[in-house]
Every structure is written in C-alpha cells, then in structure tokens.
C-alpha cells in the first residue's frame, strides 16, 4: 500500500495528530454549544426546530386575557432557542460544507490506516452520513413531525462516534503499533 500512516514520515504523522486534536477541540465546543442552545434530548431538539410553525395558532374571535402568577425565578428560566426556517437555511448553508470537509479530512486518515476494505468503506460512509442525518432530522422535525428530532440526535452522536473511532485508530496505528516506523 502506497499510503500507510503507520509508515508515514514523522511530519505527516504529526500533521494528522494535530488535525485530529484540532477537530476534537472543535467537537468538544460544538457539544457545549449544543447543550446551551438545543440540548441532548428529543424533546429539547424538537422544541428548538419544530417551533411554533408546527402548531398553527388560531387567533381568538375577540381579544382575551389570561393571567397567572409567576415568581422571580421564572424570569431567570432559559428561553427556548428557536431556529426558524430562515436560520435553518443559513445553518445548513454554513455547516454542511464544513461537515463535508471534516468528513473528507477524516476519510483521508481512514484511507491511510490498515483496515479491511469493508471497515474502511463503512467508516467513510458513517463520516459522511452522520451530518446528513443530523440536518435531515432538523428539516424533518420542522416540516414533517417533531418525532424526527431523534434523527438529529442519532446524527450528532454518529458524528462524535465516527471522530472517536478514527482518532483512536489513527493514534494507535501511528504511534503505538509495533509495525510503525
């Protein structure tokens, strides 16, 4: 095999390691951002993406008032961060190309690892399919059913799993394998 990360020159191994570390750092902060804005449960994801567009509110015949007591603590409760259609278009436009580049970079690492062809193809497919699932879940949650929020969660966890598997395999083969140079 012409391209084998186990036997690559030290600068190449260092480059791949730095790339993985940088991506890992950005994924960590990505997870932190998700916890701030969308959450990790189907309910919170559905609340973020489905929003009021899913329930067509009918205005009353005449203006009416509903009063209810609240406490000071209620003012401090975090508001639901809603992503409307315009913002979702923008998010898709910004994130999907970047996810594609990240999946391609990780796939290049996969190609340099001594994996069976089936495993390599499976990993590459996972790396690209995860962000598709992530965004498909958001769009379906908004326009089909809030139940599709689970797809976004699966996509997000699949992205994380893909990264962890590739990073672990790369570090193992580049720096720990007895067959390395």
């Amino acid at each position, binding site marked *: 095999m012409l391209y084998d990360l186990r036997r690559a020159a030290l600068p190449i191994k260092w480059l791949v390691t730095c790339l993985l570390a940088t991506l890992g750092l950005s994924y960590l902060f990505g997870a932190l951002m998700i916890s701030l804005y969308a959450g990790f449960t189907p309910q919170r994801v559905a609340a973020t993406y489905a929003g009021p567009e899913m329930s067509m509110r009918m205005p009353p015949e*005449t203006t009416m*008032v509903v009063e209810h007591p609240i406490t000071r603590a209620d003012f*401090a409760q975090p508001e639901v961060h809603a992503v409307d259609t315009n913002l979702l278009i923008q998010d898709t436009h910004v994130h999907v190309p970047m996810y594609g580049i990240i999946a391609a970079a990780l796939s290049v690492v996969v190609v340099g690892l001594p994996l069976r062809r089936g495993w390599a193809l499976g990993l590459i497919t996972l790396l690209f399919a995860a962000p598709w699932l992530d965004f498909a879940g958001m769009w379906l949650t908004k326009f089909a059913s809030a139940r599709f929020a689970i797809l976004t969660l699966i996509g997000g966890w699949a992205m994380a799993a893909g990264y962890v598997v590739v990073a672990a395999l790369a570090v193992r083969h580049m720096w720990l394998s007895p067959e390395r140079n």
Partner: protein
Amino acid sequence: MNLLMRVAAIAMMLHITPAVVLVKRPDAVEALLPGADAYTARDVHLSDVDAHRLHVAVDWSPEDGVLTFYKGKAGSVLVGALEFVRVDTPHGPIEVAVGFTPQATVRGVIVTKATVEMKPWVLEAVAAGLTNHYQGLKPGDSPGGAAAIANQAGNLAEYIAGEVDKGVARALAAYGAFYNHVRA
C-alpha cells in the same frame, strides 16, 4: 470584482453575530418594578382585528399574537408593569424592557439583549443617556431617544437608538391599547 464585493456584503449581512445578554431579565425586573415581591403574567391573546390595529399603529405584531405584560406588586400595592419587546434589525434582534408606573408613564427602559456586533453601539448609546429620554413618556407619545443623543454619540449608536425607539414605541402602543382595556 464589483460582483464579488456585493456577494461579500450580502454574506456579511446574512451572517448575524450571536446574541448576548446585556442585562439579565431578573435584574431588569428588579430595576423596573422596584420593591415588587409578587408578579403576575398577563397574556393578551390578540384577535385578528386587534393584531391588525397594532400592526398598523407601530408596524409590529407580537410573537404568536400574544402580548405579555408582567405586573409587580409590593404587598397589595401595585408597583407597575413591564414588557419585553423584541426588535428585529438587519444586524440581528435586540430586546428592550419597558417598565411602566401605576400612572401609566414609562418608569424606565433597559436594553436587555443585543448581538455581539451591536453590543458596543448599545453601550455607547446608553452611556450617552439614551434611556433617560424615555422616562415619563405615556401612551400616545413618540419616543425620540435617537434624536436626543444625535450630537453626543456616533452614527452606529444613533442608529441603534432608533431601533430602541421602535421597541419603546411598540411597548407604548401595546400598553396603551391592551393593558387595561381588556379584562381578564
């Protein structure tokens, strides 16, 4: 080249910077309803006709067609009411808290949220005394904060003051038309 510049400008406009909290809501409530120890949320669900009337008056419709006023009481004494009004600008949303006295005049105005980009403009406008110019306004008055600070702040601060004016105008119109005129 010209086309590239235009595309870059459009891209810059579309990429709104993240929202930042300038004043936490509980702190705004404490400042605008001083001494209050009990609160009531008054949700006014607008009919089509009333929503249209409000839209014609101030070019704005509240989210989901619901106006929410927060009343504060100290014991059995009414301290006042406040509204949080969102204003969408080309640079992202700002949120303005407008507090009213029991005599239906503006007690105070606080800009509670902006975006990273707009934060320095808001701070400059507030430092120039913007929010002082709203005190005492009553429904029917026109807020003129932007004009009042025109010679004391930069163009961007004056611009954002105009957006705050819009928020105050919306709060005044909503309060004047719907706070007391619709019974629970």
